[in-house]
């Protein structure tokens, strides 16, 4: 389904700000699976997601989706296969436009652009119907600018828009991180509902260990641009938040070890 092969990306190479965000990352995701990506800050988990979405061109390696090599596809071309929800609740919608107009855009994701009216009564009915499933009362406010809604409502709508056309792959980039705990739980619940209902293949970056344990059926842990742990199948079924934190501490200790060993070596030999 999604095949990431030996992906390497270095930002600002050769400068003091050089960041080796992805160091030889390979990953395969099966159709219909829901995978969480966790990791420390700067571990490259968001970079991995952005690489799949096409925000930048990798230095080397390839990305395959449904047997199509999409490595050199532009971001907007990939949108025909990939649905996206961003961390920032304001990033996924056009604030100055109405709910209906925003969704009308999503309804034609990856299709040819036409000179027919974006919204007519039939489209409006269809929008109203699906917005109702969010149970937020937004179906009565279809003509309100989306900028007047709360972050949680906007995130729920972005999720609806991203999955409107059943994308081959759904990318969730810490999409509940900027919401208050109650709203975050609600959006997480909607996420689970939509993914199970439409049997979507999803890749989710998250900061919440609990979310990683609860929602997906596979957890990948990244550290310093590499995949360091992969909990799947029975292993994933047994994993608890405590196990994840333990794994975190292990890789962080390894880091410290690296440094102290380097120091000792320096003292002895230099």
């Amino acid at each position, binding site marked *: 389904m999604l095949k990431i092969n030996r992906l390497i990306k270095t930002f600002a190479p050769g400068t003091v700000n050089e960041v080796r965000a992805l160091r030889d990352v390979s990953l395969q995701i099966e159709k219909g699976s829901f995978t969480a990506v966790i990791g420390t800050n700067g571990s490259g988990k968001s970079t991995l997601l952005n690489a799949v979405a096409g925000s930048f061109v990798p230095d080397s390696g390839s990305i395959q989706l449904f047997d199509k090599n999409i490595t050199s596809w532009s971001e907007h071309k990939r949108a025909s296969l990939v649905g996206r929800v961003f961390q920032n609740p304001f990033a996924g919608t056009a604030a100055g*436009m109405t709910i209906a107009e925003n969704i009308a855009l999503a309804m034609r994701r990856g*299709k040819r652009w036409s000179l027919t009216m974006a919204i007519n009564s039939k489209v409006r009915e269809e929008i109203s119907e699906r917005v109702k499933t969010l149970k937020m009362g937004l179906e009565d406010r279809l003509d309100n600018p989306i900028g007047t809604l709360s972050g949680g409502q906007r995130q729920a709508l972005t999720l609806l828009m991203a999955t409107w056309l059943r994308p081959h792959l759904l990318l969730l980039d810490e999409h509940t991180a900027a919401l208050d705990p109650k709203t975050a739980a609600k959006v997480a619940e909607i996420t689970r509902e939509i993914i199970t209902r439409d049997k979507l293949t999803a890749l989710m970056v998250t900061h919440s260990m609990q979310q990683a344990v609860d929602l997906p059926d596979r957890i990948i842990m990244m550290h310093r641009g590499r995949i360091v742990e992969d909990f799947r199948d029975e292993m994933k079924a047994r994993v608890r938040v405590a196990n994840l934190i333990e794994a975190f501490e292990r890789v962080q200790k390894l880091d410290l070890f690296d440094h102290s060993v380097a120091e000792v070596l320096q003292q002895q030999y230099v």
Partner: protein
Amino acid sequence: MGIVLSAFTIGLILAALTMGMLISFRMLRFTDITVDGSLTLGASVAAVTIVNGWSPWLATLLAVFLGAVAGMFTGLLYTRFKIQMILSGILMMTALYSVNLRIMGRSNIPLLDTLAVSDTTESLIGNIAGTATHINIFGWPVSMADFSVFITALLICTLTGVALRYFLLTHLGTALRATGNNPQMVRAQGVNHNMMIVLGLSMANGLVALAGALLAQYQGFADVQMGIGMMVWGLASIIIGEALVGTRTIGVAITGAILGTIFFRLLIAIALRWGLNPNDLKLVTAVFVFIALVAPIWIKSLRKTIWGGLRNA
């Protein structure tokens, strides 16, 4: 009456410019300075072709097309060559100055005894009204020629406004509006946002050139200097329009652009009548736009100090 009618007529003609800038400034949020050059481009192309015996309608269409090409170049400078927004417009505007001189061959072309688009209307009205030379509007006699120009401008402006509203409500138009709102989101919805910017700037400058072509025919000449400061005039009209009717829907915003332009022309006509030196006109407009831009912030902070003071008392 003459002064009011001419203010209305120029207002309706320049409404095309304001509608164009509504696309670039308000929908795409692109500060496009090409306007100063593409208005003159429209005027010079129309003038040269009309003097050479073209039909004024065909001449105007060619002007619109070439204006759109100019806008397309600005868009490409920005999207393909990654030149800053303002600089793309400045480069294009500067280049157009020479292009316009080349097109006209000199700095000014008079349009005396040539046909204009309003002549079609005049002959149509002549068929209905017979050989009358004047028509009565609210008790004022208005010459048939002036009246036809007004009607022509009204028709073109209305048609343009309706067509623009329709376009902005289509799928393509919705994508274009969203591009200015949130380019990241637009890409995520599978739209090439660079293409939308090029398309929007083409349309905007096509409309600006339409205003230029009509203006040249109305005032009876094309001049290489006529575009200077037009962008600020258009901006002033947009601001007035938004103050008059708001921007609740696309239709309202377009109506606002038209009404704003007319109102602005009326203000100018009155100010000139009261003895404003025409040389000061652009300074006054610039000051007006400055005030319109900063006033909302001042009012906000003023309100805060007043209400804050009351609350503390």
